[in-house]
């Protein structure tokens, strides 16, 4: 585990009786980066986040947060960590300001921190309103304010834009970007809003059934890696063999068609190879796989 790591796990595993929720997960989130953690429901994202925060004990493996080992009940690792896990919650009988004051006292933040974070999250008009009467979106803002209040070096956020309206989503995205860009804050964020993740993160890890299937950096998120050509052709099996022989390295069969990756600049060559072998080429479509399609492909498509 490197000193440059904000979050590092090695063979991190969590088993609930017969269910392997997280299986030998190796993660290395560098300081100052925004890391997106993608996965379907039950993929192991929240379990991983709970282990990172010491809320649940790993069955095996090691983990460090900001260079400190996380053990059950160990509090020293969390001095510079702000977090939000799943649903936004607050003491319903207390006002927004009082809820934040509790966080301020527990994190030893200065008195001015409450006012600053209220302004940052645009909670001014709601500051003296009881948390119990807030809308879901405003509760989410309150929870984000709680996470940001003590100016943490690491933010661990589980679905932070839940219940926010589109303007709120953009606002939080910009806020997280500015924290990372200007203050060097590391952001570890899980989300099911794939477009949102794609616009925010430096790197994304895709979880499925407890495994980290793939990690993509910002470049690979947008680059030719996920450009492809879909073709409808007679004898797809033979066509795949022909294309492989012609140097097309990634060919996948999807619903009776062929999907050829890294082929957008070689479309004429691709067509010649198939037609020249006597196959009937009925459709050829250059396309770009967005993160959502990539994610669905990796994790087994739409249920």
């Amino acid at each position: 585990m490197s000193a440059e790591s904000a979050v590092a796990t090695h063979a991190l595993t969590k088993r609930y009786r017969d269910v392997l929720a997280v299986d030998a997960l190796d993660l290395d989130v560098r300081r100052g980066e925004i890391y997106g953690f993608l996965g379907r429901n039950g993929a192991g994202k929240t379990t991983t986040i709970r282990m990172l925060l010491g809320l649940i004990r790993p069955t095996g493996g090691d983990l460090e947060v900001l260079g400190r080992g996380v053990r059950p009940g160990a509090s020293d690792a969390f001095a510079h960590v702000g977090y939000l896990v799943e649903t936004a919650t607050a003491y319903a009988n207390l006002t927004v300001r009082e809820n934040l004051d509790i966080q301020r006292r527990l994190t030893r933040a200065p008195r001015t921190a409450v006012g600053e974070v209220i302004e940052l999250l645009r909670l001014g008009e709601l500051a003296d309103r009881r948390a119990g009467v807030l809308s879901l979106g405003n509760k989410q803002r309150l929870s984000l304010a709680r996470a940001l209040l003590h100016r943490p070096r690491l933010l661990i956020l589980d679905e932070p834009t839940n219940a926010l309206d589109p303007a709120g989503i953009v606002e939080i995205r910009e806020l997280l970007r500015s924290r990372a860009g200007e203050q060097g804050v590391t952001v570890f964020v899980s989300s099911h809003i794939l477009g949102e993740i794609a616009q925010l993160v430096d790197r994304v890890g895709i979880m499925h059934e407890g495994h980290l299937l793939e990690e993509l950096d910002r470049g690979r998120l947008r680059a030719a890696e996920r450009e492809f050509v879909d073709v409808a052709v007679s004898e797809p099996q033979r066509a795949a063999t022909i294309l492989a022989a012609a140097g097309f390295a990634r060919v996948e069969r999807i619903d009776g068609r062929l999907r050829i990756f890294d082929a957008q600049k070689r479309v004429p060559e691709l067509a010649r190879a198939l037609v020249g072998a006597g196959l009937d080429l009925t459709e050829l479509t250059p396309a770009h796989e967005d993160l959502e399609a990539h994610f669905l492909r990796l994790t087994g498509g739409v249920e």
Partner: protein
Amino acid sequence: MTFVHVLATEFLKLRRAKVTWLSLTALSIGPLAIALMMWIVREPGRAAKLGLLGTKANLSGLTATWPSYFSMLTLMVGMGGMLLLSFIVAYIFGREYTEGTAKNLLALPVGRHWFALAKLVVAAVWWALLVVAVLVEALVLGAALRLPDFSATLAVRGVHDALLAAAIAYLLVPVVAWIALLGRGYLPPLGFALAMLALGDVFSHTGWAPWFPWSIVPLFIGAIGQRVTTVAPGSVVVLALTFLAGTAATIAQLRWADNAQ
């Protein structure tokens, strides 16, 4: 200093909490009811005219005197206290799970044991204030009724017994707190408290009452068997062990157990 900060937040959490007023209302009804019974016993004719429970109160063998009044007060603080305290502790510990806020406390630069201890202190202060308020109320009501046989010695003894019953009831609290953490909510600790009270009653018929924690309060205040005037040394050990074991279990549960919410 950490503990002071945590304690301050635990008190802050009670602001505008209806439960605090509900608990005061619930306990303050006790002296009112006792005073009413005393008045009925003393004035059966007027009570009957008003349609109150004159006959039943007379049949209960009560006398409208300060000794009788204090005896009932201790009974109320002891038995009512065990139940009410369980409600209070279920609320203080269980609300973090019912309201989903437990997870917000567990990854902070604060040792989790401080939360457990601070909550137990809040329960102690809450309970102490309730008992003092109710004792003051009871003394005022007793004086207003002009009950006979008052003496300073009797008053000191009566208040002492009520406070001791309240203190013994408090020693059972950490176990209820542990159940609240284990069950993650209000209902398990309340169910547990009711079950223990029932079990305490069962033990009272077997001769094991001095050795079963939930039988010791009823035994001391005379709710079961022959009322004892002092708590037996064996019972003191049982109570101390119950308190220590409950506190240790509460801290361990918060510190070591998975807190998936």
